[in-house]
């Protein structure tokens, strides 16, 4: 759970850095983003990492399901339950947040990953597959942007608990470093959430001439 989770955390940073190219002015964004996508899909090293990624996603979900089912068996029920004041709601609902993310990932893979790998994508003037056009087209509809932003909030809360929890599971018990990692985890979660959430909104608004 912790190892796969932290690998996914690391992947999110790489993914976000790539996506940030979408914030460039439209023509430069298209060229740079398409070049980057082509570079990644052609690299054998990246391909190997991508298999680790698929494995991590599946293992993380399966592991979570097994642990949740076990914990459901031992969970106690009280007639009057006020236990929730002792912990954060997102710490207690990682399964629900994870399920939202899983549904999001199915949509995300279907619309971008599948289209890029197996669909028909036009080529740009440099001969790279024009993924930028696919992205821009997808973020034309406001409800699709809203779906993305809401999913990123789910991601944010999932990370807010997940990162710290993973480090705890791996056994960082030094009080000083543990406190530092807590702060890092919070900053990381905010940065990743805001970063990913801003991009669809920006791309959407750009199309209506609010920028450029």
């Amino acid at each position, binding site marked *: 759970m912790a190892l796969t989770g932290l690998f996914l955390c690391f992947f999110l940073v790489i993914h976000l850095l790539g996506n940030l190219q979408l914030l460039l002015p439209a023509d430069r964004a298209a060229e740079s983003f398409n070049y980057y996508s082509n570079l990644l899909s052609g690299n054998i090293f990246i391909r190997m990492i991508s298999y680790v990624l698929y494995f991590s996603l599946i293992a993380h979900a399966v592991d979570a399901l097994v642990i949740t089912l076990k914990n459901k068996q031992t969970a*106690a029920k009280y007639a009057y339950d*006020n236990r929730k004041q002792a*912990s954060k709601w997102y710490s207690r609902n990682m399964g629900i947040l994870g399920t939202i993310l899983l549904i999001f990932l199915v949509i995300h893979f279907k619309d971008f990953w599948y289209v890029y790998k197996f669909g028909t994508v036009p080529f740009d003037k440099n001969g790279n597959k024009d993924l930028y056009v696919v992205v821009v087209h997808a973020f034309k509809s406001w409800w699709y942007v809203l779906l993305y932003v809401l999913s990123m909030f789910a991601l944010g809360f999932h990370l807010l608990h997940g990162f710290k929890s993973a480090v*705890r599971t791996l056994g960082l018990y030094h009080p000083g470093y543990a406190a530092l990692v807590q702060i890092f985890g919070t900053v990381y979660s905010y940065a990743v959430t805001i970063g990913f959430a801003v991009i669809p909104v920006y791309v959407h608004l750009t199309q209506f001439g609010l920028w450029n």
Partner: protein
Amino acid sequence: MKIHLKIWRQKDAKAKGKLVDYMLDQVDHHMSFLEMMDTLNEQLILKGEMPVEFDHDCREGICGTCGMMINGQAHGPVPGLTACQLHMREFEDGATIYVEPFRATAFPVKRDLKVDRSAFDRIIQAGGFITANTGQPAEANTLLITHKTAESAFDSAACIGCGACVATCKNSSAALFTSAKISHLAKIPQGEKEAAKRVLKMVSRMDEEGFGHCSNTEACEVECPQGISVLNIARMNWEYTKANLLKD
């Protein structure tokens, strides 16, 4: 002050319990919660009814025997207290108070508010000790321990084993209790030698007893009357991984 109690009554381990209403109208706000329960029991005995059974011993907050869910919180609403140290002044006149036993699969209810917490004893028996020769106590200065280390070990040893961590955990995990015992002994030289064996045995015993997995919600630390830190759980995880990797 007047108090309306809704107390879990259960005849024995197999019976299906239910909440029963009781009214107390002469509760002194200086009374401890358990003294209030004693008053109720006196009245029940005079009426020829069975008193409400609950665990208690020292009533000084240091033995860990008492423990009940008061208004849905382990040991009641005040942080850092056991039920015996909770006073009636914390409640409003005319308040309704729900009292239920600590619940977990590994803590079966024996009767009313009394639960069987011997699962904790069995975790300790699995390895929560130091193998030492009996006889004369050893010379205290043979093993030098810094003040900081001793204090840190004592912070972990402060766990009184009341079970509030399990009762408050959404997964009924005993990670805080077990880790406090493991860390306490792992931090001092006397316990270091058997640290690997200890953590493996205690963790496997904990799992066998039917406690859930820790998902790091940290509710246990909040409800712990001794304020045992969740960093003990990190220490346990570290010791467990280390012991597994370096196992012969």
